[in-house]
């Protein structure tokens, strides 16, 4: 299972973390990968100063702006699924 976490701390909240969460939720449904991706909301990841909302994919950190969420998902998350298995089954 690929772990995809989105920060919903106050700074990221103001940057649109809920936008990002729901976009990811939709794309999970759209691409039918709910058995391969575990979507979580997490508390402050201490990257408040960075650009965009703080997102962690399989341990790697990214800064994703809401407008970029779709592109990010298609490139990185789907890409991670392609590459092979996630951390846990």
């Amino acid at each position: 299972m690929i772990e995809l976490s989105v920060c919903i701390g106050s700074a990221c909240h103001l940057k649109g973390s809920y936008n990002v969460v729901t976009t990811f939720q939709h794309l999970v449904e759209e691409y039918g990968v709910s058995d391969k991706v575990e979507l979580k909301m997490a508390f402050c990841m201490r990257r408040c100063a960075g650009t965009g909302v703080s997102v962690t994919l399989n341990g790697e950190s990214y800064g994703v702006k809401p407008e970029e969420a779709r592109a990010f998902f298609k490139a990185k998350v789907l890409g991670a699924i392609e590459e092979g298995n996630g951390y846990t089954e």
Partner: protein
Amino acid sequence: MSEYMTIDGIPVEINGEKNVLELIRKVGIELPTFCYHSELSIYGACRMCMVENERGGLEAACSTPPRAGMNIRTNTERLRRYRKTILELLLANHCRDCTTCENNGSCKLQSLARRFHIDGVRFPDGERIKHAKDESSLSITCDASKCILCGDCVRMCNEIQNVGAIDFAHRGSKMLISTAFGVPMAESPCVGCGQCAAVCPTGAIVVKNNIAEVWKALDDPTVKTTVQIAPAVRVAVGKELGIGDGENALGKIIAALRRMGFDEVYDTSTGADLTVLEETEEFLHRIENGEKLPLITSCCPAWINYCEKKHPDLLKNVSTCRSPMQMLASLLREQSKLSSRRMYHVAVMPCTAKKFEAARDEFKNDGMPNVDAVLTTQELIRMIRESGIVFNELEPEAVDMPFGSVSGAGIIFGVTGGVTEAVLRRVVSDKSRTGLLSLARMGQRGSSGVKEFTVPYGDRELKIAVVSGLANAESVLKRVNNGEHFDLIEVMACPGGCVAGGGQPFVPVERRAKRSEGLYTADRVSSIRRSEENPLMFSLYNGILKGRVHELLHVDYCKGGEN
């Protein structure tokens, strides 16, 4: 240089009023009228508003423009006599069985007869009294025996709603309001918006009454009764139930519903939040791919009916999202599958068209409708009174979990421009508090029938139109058909949005603002302002909706639904 005229000996300043009637109201006199509505064209047929000038000549106040130096009286002996005779003539050809009438107590003919102390009718009953009712429509009931031919419904349906399902037929004393060729209303172009019922001064057109079946379900112990309450309802019960109009009475309404016997009470705004999320995704998807724009909202069933009848080619632009009422009902239905009892679901709506939306085939599951009955605000008020509940003594309560979480964005669906604002809150990247304030002033708020504005998104400008009233919608759609580009169009059939819906207690245009303000206030005092911040959403998508979003929350109108 201000101009003056004299009314009943009092000098009054003329300030651009269209007619003397409006000026007379300024002096604190309520001239009797049947056929005058400030938003409809002047008809001048009831002849109740005549005033007398100093030469003894009579003029109808509704159609006389004020002129400097005019000197009129509103209450001479002749005028009183004529008003009484006109009322007597109307009553002679009118069903006088007030005690069994749906509109008993809110009928203009009744109140004017009382006001002028009509103590007898010297003429035999006219033929109109024997006319049969037309109960074919799911939204309204038409009874010609109570019609005074004031023409308000005709002008509303033709001028404001551009539907034209009803008009005058025959001539003279045989005149009737009718559909073309007298077909039953359900077979006519009627879209069920109920605005005709809203402006009808008597009980000739009334909202369909579904109270009896709801009582039956409430009394049935084998059935679990649940109810959802639409946003616009909570700010419209005040006037009738003894608190201020525009005041948010949701807490008391919930308390009343529980007392009446409902097992679970929910808020349609929850469904509205889901609608925002789904519709935004749809919107962004279309924007990205540049296809099927403009996106046209789909939560108003009268608009869907209008689109199917007049613009079937635009159905592909309509959002595939279900309305908030249907989305919430879908969820509740799913959840109730775990229960041992069958769920009877009721929706309290400001809307008459919801009655036939609930009956549409698309919203049935195994042949059973998701929403069993729709009650309008007027029917809810009636049920509360019937129960004997003293409304303003109720202690407010809250909706049931797990669907008890709503955002302010969901609540403002009841106003024109509300859906658009809710969607925009999700779309724009500025999620700060100031962002909300500037979003409020983009141009979607306010009572104007057509509002156009642009919103920056990324590197483009989104062109948005918010319309209420179907004639206004028609003018914008005409421009779309001529090639003008819009990204999003919000269409509400009722002018002003759902707060002025056909099922709401009627208030004239000038007093509608209080209701809209009530909803915007409710939004302001919510902790959660945006649909995506509603924590319930996340758990829903991870739970019931997983893998079933399309099945439960979307609908395909292009297949040609049932009226």
